[in-house]
């Protein structure tokens, strides 16, 4: 009955992964997005439901669950109903190859397959079919325009994305995500073959931002032109499934960037004095902010919180390294720290930059990112071959 246990295991892991996506990426992601956007625009963000508005997205989810499903009269019902599920499932499948860390000898990953990152980009490319189908089936001109924009954008940005992934695969010598993390034990890939690691990381992150349709590349859902783009006709939970798929994919891109360029779950291998210096500098700035009274300013409070958190991390690391423990913190802590740092970066970008025009968007992909990615691949390959 080996196949029965395999199927049971698959079902259980799917449930765990889906719960993780719904709670961490969708609910917590939306909360973070609203809080950080509030901070950047000098507002408070959600505040009334629960402490600091933490339960706001749970209340929103309950509201969305109760809403009526509306299907437009002239819509293609079958495709209309299938499209959100396709987007959500594609977002879920991305996470199959993401390793969260290490527990003893086991790597915390659903499946470590030998084509890991190829699988990831294949699954990420499936989202666009759901988006296009949903936009077409709604029988609404705004939705159709949004779907078409999404298709042209995602097809053209898949190439720089794949070039970024190829660079990592070439340097690591493997496509497996676990293998890529293990290959970074000495040096993170963002610092290897300088400055080409940084270039590859920038190419990948830009293409990833465009691939998940976030500002400054959010033309498919440009509110001011297209109402809401491809999901303009969707209500209640179907709308929520689109959002879930989008956030799942945005977080998956951040997680993959952390795995490919920032060493995944590996701990940064710095000497104790550097941790101490960073910790003392952090404490100094925090004390300065509190003493000068600037901490009461609304706009500085999040900075204070982030600083205090990273200072605490530095101090813990200093004492850990002094005590001689080799991995000081459990590995998932590092994975989530890196992933949320990148998620913060994505949200920061979203609320800072204005939207591009469609021709600028396509020019950036075909005339800047594609040649840069190709040259990067060529030069790095040459350098690696020469060094060998």
């Amino acid at each position, binding site marked *: 009955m080996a*196949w029965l246990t395999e199927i049971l295991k698959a079902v259980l892991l799917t449930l765990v992964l889906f719960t993780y996506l719904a709670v961490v990426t969708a609910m917590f992601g939306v909360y973070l997005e609203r809080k950080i956007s509030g901070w950047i625009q000098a507002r408070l963000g959600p505040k009334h439901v629960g402490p600091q508005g933490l339960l706001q997205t749970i209340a929103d989810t309950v509201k969305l669950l109760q809403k009526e499903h509306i299907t437009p009269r002239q819509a*293609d019902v079958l*495709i209309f109903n299938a499209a959100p599920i396709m987007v959500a499932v594609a977002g879920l499948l991305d996470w199959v190859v993401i390793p969260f860390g290490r527990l003893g000898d086991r790597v915390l990953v659903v499946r470590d*397959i*030998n*084509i890991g990152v*190829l*699988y990831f*980009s*294949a*699954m990420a*490319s*499936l989202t*666009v*079919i759901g988006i*296009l*189908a949903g936009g*077409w089936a709604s*029988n609404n*001109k705004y939705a*159709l325009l949004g*779907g*078409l924009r999404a*298709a*042209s954008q*995602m*097809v053209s940005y*898949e190439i720089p994305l*794949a070039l970024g992934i190829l660079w990592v695969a070439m340097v690591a010598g493997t*496509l497996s995500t676990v293998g890529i993390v293990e290959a970074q034990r000495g040096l993170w890939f963002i610092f290897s073959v300088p400055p080409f690691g940084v270039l590859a990381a920038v190419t990948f992150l830009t293409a990833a931002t465009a691939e998940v349709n976030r500002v400054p590349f959010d033309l498919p859902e440009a509110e001011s032109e297209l109402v809401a783009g491809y999901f303009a006709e969707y209500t209640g939970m179907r709308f929520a499934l689109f959002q879930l798929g989008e956030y799942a994919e945005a977080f998956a891109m951040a997680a993959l960037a952390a795995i490919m360029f920032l060493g995944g779950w590996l701990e940064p291998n710095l000497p104790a004095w550097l941790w101490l210096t960073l910790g003392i500098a952090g404490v100094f700035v925090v004390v300065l902010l509190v003493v000068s009274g600037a901490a009461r300013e609304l706009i500085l409070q999040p900075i204070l919180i982030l600083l205090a958190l990273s200072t605490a991390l530095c101090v813990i690391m200093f004492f850990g390294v002094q005590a001689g423990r080799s991995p000081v913190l459990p590995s998932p802590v590092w994975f989530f720290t890196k992933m949320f740092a990148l998620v913060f970066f994505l949200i920061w970008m979203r609320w800072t930059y204005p939207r591009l025009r469609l021709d600028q968007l396509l020019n950036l992909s075909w005339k800047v990112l594609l040649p840069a990615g190709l040259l990067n691949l060529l030069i790095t390959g040459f350098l690696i071959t020469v060094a060998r």
Partner: protein
Amino acid sequence: MGELAAFIILSCVTLIPAVVVVTSGNIVRSALSLVPTFLGVTGLYILLHAEFVAGIQILIYAGAITVLLLFVIMLTAGGTGTRIRQVNEQVPLGAMAAVWLGFLILLVIFRTPWQSAATAAPQYNIASVGTAFLTDYVLIFEVTSLVLLVSLIGAIIIARREE
């Protein structure tokens, strides 16, 4: 036993939407039905332990070719594509060709003396695929690249002429 069950399920996943592709009156539905067909073929590749081909199959066929098809339909057919009906006036001819082809394939399958390999299958990984491309099959590989390049240049020239 498990392999047979998987094969039957994957064949159904491949063939039922394939029938929809050729019989549906709505051209967008036909194009979208290609997605499960491609995914079923991917499953068959995985059943044959050809993971790399499976990944490429999803990336190219399901992720790019279908999108391209839908894109073309939606851009040419007066917006949404619902107005073009897929008409097929050559059903008898097509059925005859299909039956003939099926007969030929069955003939080949039953006439070939299949031998089950005594040794294990050769090591299959991406590195060996790449090595084969650049050593034994380098000419075919380069000619294919050249064909793609020519079609790319042709597309650009056609697009330029309209300006």
